């Protein structure tokens, strides 16, 4: 069995800190659908590295401040 883990994010908090940015506005800025932002916030989807960088850039934050990786015991 390989190492298991989950990617967590601070997207919801960061959206509210950015003048209560809507999911649709973030989706448009990152070039994805609103459903993908909803899935990310619900931790139902782990983004590609490219999308993670795009979202970090929208918030003007380093990648590690937006996304974190939590390793779980297999």
């Amino acid at each position, binding site marked *: 069995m390989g190492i298991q883990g989950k990617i967590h994010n601070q997207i919801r908090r960061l959206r509210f800190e950015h003048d209560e940015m809507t999911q649709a506005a973030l989706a448009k800025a990152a*070039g*994805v*659908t609103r*459903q*993908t932002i909803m*899935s990310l916030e*619900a*931790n*139902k*989807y782990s*983004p*590609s590295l*490219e*999308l993670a960088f795009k979202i970090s850039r929208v918030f003007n934050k380093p990648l590690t401040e937006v996304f974190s990786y939590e390793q779980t015991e297999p």
Partner: protein
Amino acid sequence: MLSLQHLSTREQNILATLTLDLLVTLYYFSELAGMETGLTEPSEQMGQLILKVIILSILASILLFGWIRWRSGEEEPRDERDYQIEAKANSIAYGVLFGAVALLIGHLIINAIDWHASVMPFLSFTPMLCAHALLVILLLSSTAKSVTQLYLYRRGI
């Protein structure tokens, strides 16, 4: 209870595809069951039915997908999550297609070697029956794809 409003445009399109596939197939086979020649032999009636089903499918698709498009207002662009979900659904649909075709081939071979050892010795595997079996396999594969997509959109990947 999940209503249409809780589904994204993409999920509504997938649900429409699934419903249309199942309804058209159900209609086709129910009409076919009423024919004297049935599934095994080709007939003029069967040709007319196939033409009717194709025309009905096209009309129903235009109406249903047009209505979904009209309700949503604009076309939803696809992103990486959509492609990932479609890839997983395609992989499962391929498994279903491969498994079912392998079973059909196996059955045809057994049927040809020893007719009495066949699982369905009461059926003579005419080319028309094989075509219908393949049609059912295609439906199974398509259903597996749609169901997987709907499941992954709801549960997440």
